[in-house]
């Protein structure tokens, strides 16, 4: 582990029957960070979680979680992590309480301590009233919340969350996202979030990595990735009267690199952000009345598809 990284992966490789499914994956994640791991189905997100949690041994490369080597200290790694698997992995024939008690026992909790923790978590996730019900009768949202409670049972500093909101209604998804945010911001837990929900990643993650065919094709904050892809600045200008003379004037300005009109909106491409006040000044000087100027930002979805397109 480097001094500040809680999770460190160096050139991780995993092969199944000679086929390479994880290909030289490297990254570092700091304490309290929510790190998004994005990619299509089968890209290698879940396999990476399995490698980092010491369940699956890497074919090549190394990784450390909280300083523990996933290859030589897998048991220590599993003590400091909580994993929310994509499928709930709950025992449907047992009650919510029995499920949590089983995992609690395996994390070394017993007696009053165990019961208190179970009640605390069931209360926190709004499942207290259903504590004795069989999990098989639970909705997808309730199962997700119970799985998250299980992942948090032993108070782990590192969490791996695999598609935490998949299959949930908007309300349920919002609830889980709020929990994730709290876990990072207030409790300083480090979160490795696998998702293909790009809006969710943008909302939650300080940094993301995009994985495709087992290889990381981009890594950084959504803003950095955007800046790398769109080096020019684009602004949307809303004018009172956008007549031909004004449009011609704008187009011929030295700072304007490109201009397009889309659904009566004027989009102007500039060399940099510093050109925005110059543009406004020029238009006003020419007698134009500006209602608004907005810098166009790209959604993570646009970034994601652009990166994947470029790497093809």
């Amino acid at each position, binding site marked *: 582990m480097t001094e500040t990284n809680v999770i460190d992966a160096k050139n991780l490789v995993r092969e*199944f029957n000679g086929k390479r*499914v994880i290909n030289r994956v490297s990254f570092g994640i700091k304490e309290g960070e929510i790190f998004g791991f994005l990619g299509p189905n089968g890209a290698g997100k879940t*396999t990476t979680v*399995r490698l980092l*949690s010491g*369940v*699956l*041994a890497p074919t090549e490369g190394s990784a450390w979680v909280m300083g523990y080597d996933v290859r030589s200290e897998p*048991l*220590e790694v*599993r*003590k400091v*992590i909580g*994993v929310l*698997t994509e*499928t709930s*992995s*709950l*025992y*449907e*024939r*047992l009650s919510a309480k*029995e499920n949590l008690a*089983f*995992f609690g*026992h*395996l*994390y*070394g909790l017993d007696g009053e301590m165990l019961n208190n923790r179970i009640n605390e978590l069931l209360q926190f996730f709004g499942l207290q009233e259903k504590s004795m019900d*069989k999990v098989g009768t639970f909705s997808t949202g309730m199962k997700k919340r119970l*799985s998250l409670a*299980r992942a948090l049972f032993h108070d782990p500093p590192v969490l791996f969350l695999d598609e935490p909101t998949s299959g949930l209604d908007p309300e349920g998804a919002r609830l889980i996202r709020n929990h994730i945010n709290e876990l990072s911001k207030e409790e300083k837990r480090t979160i490795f979030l696998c998702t293909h929900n790009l809006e969710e990643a943008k909302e939650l993650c300080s940094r993301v990595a995009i994985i495709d065919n087992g290889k990381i094709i981009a890594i950084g904050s959504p803003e950095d990735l955007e800046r790398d892809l769109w080096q020019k600045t684009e602004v949307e200008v809303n004018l009172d009267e956008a007549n031909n003379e004004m449009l011609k004037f704008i187009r011929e300005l030295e700072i304007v690199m490109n201009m397009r009109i889309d659904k009566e909106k004027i989009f102007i491409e500039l060399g940099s952000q510093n050109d925005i006040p110059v543009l406004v000044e020029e238009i006003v000087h020419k007698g134009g009345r500006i209602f608004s100027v907005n810098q166009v930002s790209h959604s993570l979805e646009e970034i994601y598809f652009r990166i994947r397109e470029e790497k093809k």
Partner: protein
Amino acid sequence: MNWHNVITIARKDIKEVRENKSIWIPMIVVFLIFSVVLPVIFILAILHTAESELMTEPMKTFFQNMPTSLTNQIAGMTLEQQMIYLAVTYFFAPLFLILPLMVSNIFAVDSFAGEKERKTIEALLYTPTTDKELIMGKLLAAFVPSQIIAWIGFVIYSIVVNLTGYPTFGRIFFPGLLWVVLMLWIVPAVSLFGLGVSVLVSIKAKSFQEAYQISGSVVLPFIAILLMQIFGVIYLSIWFTLVLGLLFWVVDWIILYIGTKKFRRGEIIANMV
């Protein structure tokens, strides 16, 4: 090895099976058939059949090939008593062994292949348990119920055959030394045999059904023993039972050794990819 983890896993697995009626109802049915229905029908059939009709050709062959030790055991008994004694003590023995075998087989398959099929095993693999604790917990979860059921079955079987045969014998005639050896030496070995095969099959199998169908073939050797006994090829003497038990223990050791070597969480999770 952390025995607290082993026992926790075993208790959870037993509870899960207990909650699954589709598993334990057929088990109780088979249990009742072997311990109550079949022996009662067999004894009543003997009691209500004329002596002349009891001596069928296979029975004549069996009596002719019977070793001296067995002839001495039934000397002085009436034909009815001889037939009941032989059936209860010898013919039902291999059939009775199927009971613990079946129980350990079902529990083990549900515990390994069933968990894989229901995808519940993934969360378990992420816990701080060792591979050895996982497999020991699961073996215990299958072994303990199979022994309990075998002993309950044995007690019920003993009561049923003594009660049904009492009008003819006028005394308690069962169990003899053979069944004590059977219960203490063969039954645990046979249960472990079923367990070992189930573990080996379940590691690779993707579903409960697939694993159960393949591992279910472990009953075949016991049906073979039953048939060989009927046709007088072998008979379950105490020495034969001791040697047979030893053979099973050796086979068990080999199968379980391979099973525990092959049981690696990485292997299981790799098969789930």
